[in-house]
């Protein structure tokens, strides 16, 4: 019948179908009767009504709503537990025109993320926080939340929450309303039609506040969790209205723009301005002044040998030669003497992954790394080993091994610190992947101390000379000087 018109339907802010898993792509993953779905609906509708969908960025938390990014057709970021306000701060500051929302549960916001929410509110960040309070940890299976009620039995308060043991329920709205900086704070409930409509208004108002540049807004939504509360969905909703609302009074806790003095000293610069570069495509097409070639390199040794720095230098050189580069470090918590390695990819095409499982070149700065990574070197690859000779019994039949006693050379030059630069020079000379002049240019930009810069210059030359004079010319089968 065409005499009916649609007045309520799935909001366009939701995806048409949810690609979380193969089946059930029409449904959310929430339990029947969950409050999250209603909260999602209110946010989605408000975004659509305010015309903010294309500007919106939703920060998903850890908790049941971790998958919000499967549902909302907006910009999505999923962050570590409790850190949503910090991530939202960064997003909003980096993209001032966007509408940034953090969506957090009570465990996320009021327990592990207490610091983030308090400070984001105290800075009066121009973000919206939607705080789902269901008085319990849902996803992890019913542990006590900071907002659990007095006497509430949970898996971690089996005798009921007591003031002396677990403290009193945390009232986030009241807590944040004691700060001078927030603009809008309201607590609403998702228990019946009337309150859901009030919640809709609150959500919309929070988004409008941000749209107007009003400042920090937080909407706390008291929400049912039928599964963990072991209640029928209808009973759970009644429980919210009859019990939860009594402990957490509904209402507006803050509704005025704080009168904060402007700070004229804060530089409002774009990233491009800060870096003093021009935005957009440069007129000069990327020219390759020198011969460059694609290469995957793994550099390994112990912390303190300049392993990661050597990788950075190589990557920086690639950048200067207009190559695509990636640098992926891997190291332990020790600053020195732990094992460290990094992966460097140099390419003329976009790089799919920075992780290199079969490097074309391995730089082993110690014996341990040689044994550990040599078997993974690609067939026809190259191994540069930081010693005059290979350890006894070692063989890597698939690769060519070149011994460069970089540490020894560096010691002779006067500082063991430049062993990595000696090895870098040997790498450049042996593979001819990048010119050594670029290495010097990078070093000039990196090393501030002229004494060390001179040492680096000598190290570059020494490494290059060593390969030219001491290393036998191998069986080169390919025109690029490389034996695949």
């Amino acid at each position: 019948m065409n005499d009916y018109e649609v007045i309520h339907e799935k909001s366009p802010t939701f995806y048409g179908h949810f690609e979380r898993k193969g089946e059930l792509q029409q449904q959310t993953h929430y339990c029947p009767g969950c409050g999250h779905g209603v909260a999602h609906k209110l946010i989605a509708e408000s975004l659509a009504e305010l015309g903010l969908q294309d500007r919106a960025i939703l920060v998903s938390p850890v908790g049941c709503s971790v998958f919000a990014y499967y549902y909302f057709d907006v910009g999505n970021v999923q962050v570590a537990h409790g850190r949503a306000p910090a991530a939202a701060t960064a997003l909003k500051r980096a993209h001032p025109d966007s509408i940034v929302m953090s969506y957090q549960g009570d465990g996320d916001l009021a327990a592990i993320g207490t610091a983030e929410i308090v400070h984001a509110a105290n800075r009066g960040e121009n973000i919206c926080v939607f705080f789902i309070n269901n008085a319990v940890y849902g996803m992890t299976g019913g542990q006590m939340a900071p907002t659990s009620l007095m006497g509430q039995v949970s898996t971690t308060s089996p005798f009921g929450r007591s003031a002396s043991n677990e403290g009193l329920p945390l009232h986030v709205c009241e807590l944040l309303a004691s700060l001078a900086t927030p603009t809008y704070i309201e607590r609403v409930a998702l228990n019946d039609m009337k309150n859901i409509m009030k919640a809709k208004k609150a959500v919309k108002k929070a988004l409008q506040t941000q749209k107007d540049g009003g400042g920090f807004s937080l909407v706390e939504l008291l929400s049912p969790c039928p599964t963990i509360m072991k209640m029928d969905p209808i009973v759970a909703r009644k429980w919210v209205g009859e019990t939860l609302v009594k402990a957490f009074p509904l209402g507006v806790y803050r509704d005025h723009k704080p009168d904060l003095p402007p700070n004229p000293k804060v530089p409002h610069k774009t990233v491009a301005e800060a870096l003093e570069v021009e935005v957009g495509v440069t007129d000069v097409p990327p020219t390759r002044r020198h011969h460059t070639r694609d290469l995957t390199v793994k550099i390994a040794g112990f912390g303190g040998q300049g392993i990661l720095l050597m990788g950075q230098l190589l990557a920086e050189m690639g950048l200067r030669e207009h190559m695509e580069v990636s640098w992926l470090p891997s190291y332990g918590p020790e600053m020195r003497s732990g094992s460290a390695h990094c992966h460097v990819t140099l390419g003329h095409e976009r790089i799919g992954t920075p992780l290199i499982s079969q490097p074309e070149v391995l730089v082993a700065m110690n014996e341990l790394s040689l044994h550990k990574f040599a078997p993974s070197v690609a067939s026809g690859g190259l191994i540069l080993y930081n010693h005059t000779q290979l350890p006894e019994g070692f063989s890597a039949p698939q690769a060519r091994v070149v011994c460069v006693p970089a540490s020894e050379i560096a010691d002779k030059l006067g500082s063991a610190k430049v062993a990595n630069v000696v090895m870098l020079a040997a790498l450049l000379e042996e593979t001819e992947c990048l010119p050594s002049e670029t290495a010097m240019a990078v070093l000039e930009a990196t090393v501030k101390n002229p004494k060390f810069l001179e040492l680096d210059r000598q190290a570059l030359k020494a490494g290059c000379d060593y390969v030219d004079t001491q290393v036998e010319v191998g069986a080169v089968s390919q025109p690029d000087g490389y034996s695949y």
Partner: protein
Amino acid sequence: MASQPRGKVVIDPDECKGCGLCVESCPPECLVLAPELSKYGVHPARYTGQDCTGCGACFYCCPEPGAITVYRLKPPAKIVPTAVTQNAEVANEAAL
């Protein structure tokens, strides 16, 4: 036409999880949980086909983004005294 309900609800059984919140929230009590199981093994909500006012309470109480679509009867077209609409009305009447 006078007995036609003001509203209409369409519930997608593939999206309904059978929580029953819409049934409970419906002011004119025109929703029920179907006696048969959906292919996911729940009793999905169903519109009885009578008395819907198109208020939207079920829509906002339902946690699923798109399980419920609410329709409302279009208000009767205002009669504008122009020849075109009058002719259209006449044509409609004739068709009925």
